[in-house]
């Protein structure tokens, strides 16, 4: 008996010593496993400040707008903006009581720094369940607000938010050059990261979010490059004769799957990022392209026209065990594996154009997400697999749009130039 007790005590000790691996650090209010659930109602009160004037009003407005959009886009919350900034500790601050929690806060501007202090208050108990403080230079408040949104998502759901995630894409300028650009997931904060005056295509993120891999024609052949966004350093990763296109970074970061034509036909290969050796995965006389990894790192979905038309297939990541995933429609391409592992988004040719669909990895539940008479292409998943960003020319030029996983809430993100081939960062 005593022995057993000691053992249990030891296990408990270990469990408390590593709280992160054992038990959630904070109370989790909603644990989400399914894709369908009721959104939680949150009350968002205007942040207070000792500062007055136009700048303070602008920052207050920005906090309200960005936080509301971030929390709504997370998929978990309905946010209602409140008119009054209630006392920070007030549990019954608003008249209605159907709110799950209330968000209050204050900010201060001093010496070109904005300091924002949000608080999340549980409506039932009136207690503060989250409090933090973020400082950013004036003009850079958005990243602090995105962090606050992610904190709130984590506090209330236990899931990581993605308000700080980025989207890389191809921007075609007026003179026809196609450069790689990066923006916040909500379409703000656009940075063009290449100045090659060439054709650059298909950017994808490294799993750590620090690098981009993409195809560039700047040396008269579509070669693959890796650009380190922190250092600005660029290295060639594959430059064999012919196509070096359609990169897909493996979730473990070690390999990049891609399309090469060096052996005569478009086939899928992987290249080891550090050791540079390549391995061939597909052997067929048809086109094989557009690989996308399963989050488990064990499988790759890709497009092949081996049946006479492009269809989506899945294989093990060593190239074995190839099986066809899509059977409906005469042109299915551009697969994107959800980070949740359950669904694959792809593009299908319809009577009216091209539309985005999802299908479960077992080939069931094919679902149409877009329905417009033009082209809806290039689906890419949010880090939590709840939303997608894609390109569409439904309003003329190709622009980027976002929507939820079921096709709801389609929203235009970009306006200037032509923008396509989005890739949502992994975190």
């Amino acid at each position, binding site marked *: 008996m005593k022995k057993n*007790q000691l053992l*249990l005590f030891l*296990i*408990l000790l270990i*469990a408390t010593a590593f709280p992160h*691996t054992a*038990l*959630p650090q904070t109370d989790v209010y909603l644990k989400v*496993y399914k894709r369908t659930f009721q959104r939680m109602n949150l009350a968002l009160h205007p942040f207070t400040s000792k500062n007055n004037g136009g700048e303070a009003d602008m920052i207050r407005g920005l906090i309200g707008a960005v936080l509301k959009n971030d929390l709504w886009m997370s998929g978990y919350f309905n946010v209602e903006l409140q008119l009054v900034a209630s006392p920070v500790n007030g549990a019954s601050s608003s008249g209605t009581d159907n709110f799950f929690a209330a968000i209050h806060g204050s900010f201060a501007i001093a010496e070109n720094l904005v300091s924002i202090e949000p608080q999340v208050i549980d409506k039932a108990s009136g207690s503060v369940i989250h409090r933090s403080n973020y400082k950013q230079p004036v003009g850079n408040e958005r990243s602090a607000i995105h962090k606050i949104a992610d904190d709130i998502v984590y506090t209330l759901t236990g899931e990581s938010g993605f308000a700080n995630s980025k989207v890389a894409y191809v921007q075609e300028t*007026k*003179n*026809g050059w196609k450069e790689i650009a990066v923006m916040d997931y909500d379409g703000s904060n656009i940075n063009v990261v290449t100045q090659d005056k060439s*054709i650059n*295509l298909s950017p994808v993120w490294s799993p750590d979010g620090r690098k981009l891999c993409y195809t560039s024609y700047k040396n*008269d052949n*579509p070669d693959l490059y890796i650009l380190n966004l922190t250092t600005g350093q660029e290295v060639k990763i594959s430059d064999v004769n*012919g*196509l070096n*296109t359609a990169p897909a970074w493996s979730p473990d970061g070690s390999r990049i799957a891609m*399309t090469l*034509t060096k052996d*005569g*036909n*478009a086939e899928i290969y992987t290249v080891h990022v550090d050791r540079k050796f390549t391995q061939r995965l597909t052997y067929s006389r048809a*086109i*094989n*392209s*557009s690989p996308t990894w*399963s*989050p*488990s790192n*064990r*499988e790759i979905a890709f*497009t092949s*026209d081996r*049946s*006479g*038309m*492009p269809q989506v297939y899945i294989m093990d990541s060593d190239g074995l*065990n190839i*099986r066809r*995933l899509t*059977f*409906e*429609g*005469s*042109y299915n*391409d*551009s697969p994107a594996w959800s980070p*949740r*592992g*359950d669904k694959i988004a792809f593009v299908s*040719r319809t009577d009216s154009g*091209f539309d985005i669909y999802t299908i*479960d990895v*077992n080939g069931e539940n094919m679902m149409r997400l877009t329905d417009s008479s*033009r*082209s809806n*292409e290039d689906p890419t998943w949010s880090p939590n697999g709840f939303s997608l960003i894609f390109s569409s020319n439904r309003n003329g030029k190709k622009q980027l749009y976002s929507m939820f996983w079921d096709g709801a809430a389609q929203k235009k993100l970009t306006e200037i130039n032509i923008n*396509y081939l989005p890739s949502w960062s992994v975190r």
Partner: protein
Amino acid sequence: MKKIFCLKTTMILLFSLMLVTGCGGSKEVVDYEPRPDPFPQPEEEPFDGRPDVVEKADIIKEDVTEKEDYFELKPPALRTIYFEFDESRLTENGRAVLAENARWLMENKSDIVRIEGHCDERGTVEYNLALGQRRAVAVRDYLVNLGVSRNRMLVLSFGKERPVSFGNNEKAWGQNRRAEFVKL
């Protein structure tokens, strides 16, 4: 009594620990029953003769100054050939044009050319890159068969990234599904 309570709490804690760590893995289903292909024939669209290359004038009218040089590089005697939708097979017309191009290449033996494969705007970027490559390779291989030295011809695919005609109609698509010759 207290001990039992302690034990119970411990068990509950341990069990919840197992739950927390056990639910992380992603669900994957691997068994598939191959089904018969419901659409065995690829869709094909009528191809009405070869489109003319007059579109070049339209291009230069666009504000693209850099692209002018690009077209000047092209030798006038080598003609562009055209393809059907999602096809890299040479048409009757394409073969005839290539026979003329082959004669030109045999007469101008010092010239090295690049065959550039292009596609219409339909379909995805990456698939069309592969399709454009296939078209350029089909043209090169045909010329090799006609006696042109293989190492005088490079191939390059631009997919659908460099259209010559910007409409969303059958005519524009037909003009964009092409293989061009660029003298290097």
